[in-house]
């Protein structure tokens, strides 16, 4: 940075400001991990009588989406951009083959080195050498000076990705039973769930949830593909993720003659209201493999359909009139009605997400890693030689570089 840079820019791009901002950001996000997020304001006032109003004033109840957090990040981005742009000019100068730092260090000196030996070392390591007969100056990995800039650019690209993501990303959950369809009007295609099933570990724990979909595009092409946890499916800018699952149970209500008068699929925890008798059928739960818990309550042992049972509670005019544990096909007689469940079907819960920022974020990761690797391992190394005395110089790893040169020069060959 040269003297003509205005003071305000010099300040705004300074490392001091960067570190203050980083500490503020770190403190802010740490508090975010300590406080429950997105609660009701009254919760904080009640729970933290002293700090509650401060928490709300600083938006620490929604730390990661608050204006304060965004302002901090914006200031940090500005600082990083300025500092990167300003330091670039000096770095470009250092790429020049004629560039050498001043070799002042008293620490990194190697005495009594033969000229030829040093030249051989430098040639072997592909140093560019400036030799005027008495003084030799050699340098390598000059491009390494750009490592920090590349890293910083990677971080800025990441921020751009994050901003685009937070503005444009959206998601919805779609629950489908086998055979069900869902239409994506804007993208112009329809999905059909062909199959959903679980595979199991020996212990009975679920090993995997697998949904098979047929995607029908409006132009007539269809494809069929499976997705599971950790293997999402992408189509026309939408990502489909296996996120959830549940059971839908087939309820039947029959009269005394055996004729079915009502029924259909219902989820556990939901009720069906049969108007003619003012009867509410509440499916408390479905147990694919039922066991008996501590207080003689039914418990779900696994999701394998080994020994299925339904827990059902009936209400008439809002008053509970009976509770039952029944197997598929078992009839509950209530007055002149037969109430029973025939079977259950597992449904899949897909998270459908649109996020255009991910490729940008992936790119930023790659840029950052390249930049870090260059900074830390391909940094510039310089050697000067005069009258048997070698001085090594590298800003990033002085002692180790010095040791390496020293031991290489000490070798016999």
């Amino acid at each position, binding site marked *: 940075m040269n003297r003509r840079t205005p003071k305000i820019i010099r300040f705004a791009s300074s*490392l001091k400001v*960067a*570190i203050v901002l*980083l*500490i503020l*950001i*770190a403190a802010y*996000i*740490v508090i*975010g*991990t*300590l*406080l*429950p*997020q997105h*609660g009701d304001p009254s919760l904080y006032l009640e729970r933290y009588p002293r700090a509650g109003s401060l928490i709300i004033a600083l938006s620490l109840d929604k*730390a*990661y989406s608050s204006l304060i957090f965004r302002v901090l990040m914006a200031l940090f981005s500005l600082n990083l951009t300025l500092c990167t742009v300003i330091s670039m000019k000096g770095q470009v100068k250092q790429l020049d083959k004629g560039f050498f730092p001043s070799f002042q260090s008293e*620490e990194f000196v190697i005495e009594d080195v033969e000229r030829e030996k040093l030249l051989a070392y430098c040639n072997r390591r592909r140093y560019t050498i400036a030799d005027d007969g008495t003084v030799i100056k050699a340098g390598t990995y000059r491009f390494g000076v750009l490592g920090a800039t590349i890293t910083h650019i990677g971080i800025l690209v990441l921020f751009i990705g*994050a901003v685009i993501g937070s503005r444009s990303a959206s*998601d919805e959950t779609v629950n489908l039973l086998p055979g069900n369809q869902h239409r994506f009007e804007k993208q112009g295609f329809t999905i059909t769930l062909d199959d959903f099933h679980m595979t199991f*570990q020996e*212990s009975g*724990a*679920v*090993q*995997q*949830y697998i949904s098979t979909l047929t995607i029908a595009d409006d132009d007539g092409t269809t494809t069929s593909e499976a997705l*599971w*946890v*950790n*293997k*999402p499916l992408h189509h026309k800018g939408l*990502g489909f*993720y*296996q*996120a959830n699952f549940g059971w839908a149970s087939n309820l039947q209500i029959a009269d005394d003659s055996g004729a079915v008068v009502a029924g259909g699929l219902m989820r556990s925890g939901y009720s069906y209201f049969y108007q003619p008798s003012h009867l509410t059928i509440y499916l408390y739960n479905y147990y694919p493999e039922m066991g008996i818990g501590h207080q003689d309550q039914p418990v779900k042992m696994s999701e394998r359909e080994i020994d299925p049972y339904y827990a059902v509670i009936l209400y008439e005019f809002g008053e509970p009139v009976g509770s039952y544990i029944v197997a598929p096909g078992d009839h509950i007689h209530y007055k002149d009605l037969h109430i029973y469940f025939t079977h259950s079907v597992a449904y899949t819960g897909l*998270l459908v*997400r649109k*996020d255009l920022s*991910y490729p940008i*974020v*992936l790119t930023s*990761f790659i840029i*950052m*890693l390249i930049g*870090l*690797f260059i900074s*830390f391992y391909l940094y510039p190394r310089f050697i000067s030689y005069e009258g048997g005395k070698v001085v090594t110089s590298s*800003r*990033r*790893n*002085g*002692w*180790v570089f010095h040791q390496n040169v020293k031991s290489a020069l000490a070798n016999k060959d």
Partner: protein
Amino acid sequence: MYQRIENVTFIIAFAFYVVSALLFLIQISKLSKRVEKVGVLTTLAGLVLHTVAMAARTIGAGRLPFSNQYEFALSFAWGIVLSFLILFALYRFGAIGAFVLPLAILVMGYASMQNKTVRPLMPALQSIWLTFHVGTAILSYGSFALACAISVIYLIDSKRTSEHKILAEPEVSDILSYRVVVFGFMMLTIVIISGAIWAQKAWSRYWAWDPKETWSLITWIIYAIYLHMRLRKNWRGKHAAWFSIIGFVSVIFTFVGVNILLPSIHSYVN
């Protein structure tokens, strides 16, 4: 059977580490200089058995031991000892063992308090990214532990006269700790990135401000500040040493504290 092999080798490895730590302590208290070699050998023996314990678990479980607190602590301690031995192979500073091995012993002690049952992987963990993510975490955390130990030595040495120093030249421990932090930082970056890529595959979001994620970011920020202060403001010696110790405290909190403390705070929201 694999469980038996694992338990036995775990205990013997632990014992070897304790013996090695004592030997290195004897070495640095200048009671005897020759114990260094023995100390390195017992550490190596410990690491071999430790590796056998991990291999037994890998075979028994049918996957790498990377998926719960016990397994990760087992691997973390392994990473600490491994990075110490690699550093020894490069620079022959055995004395660092007096400070690194106690850290490994603590982490193994923590491991032994965890539930050891082999559990099948839940679907979200069944990913190639788990291996990559945790594998780099072991290297990263192992390096930060090593850097912390070297920094402690630096701080002790900086108060002593030259004949009582643990490592002859404090400048060397200063720069070594810096280089080890550099490696750890590189690896931590890969840990966070691979975690993000995995989260994108499993949960559709590469970043969700979960406490564990956030704390790993804090650790990363701390070390980023350290690197900048060193390079730009010429921070050396004491400041840098304290910073690398603070960084390691953040590592430990990310590993242990977040699991123990934060879920309980958050649990009532759910």
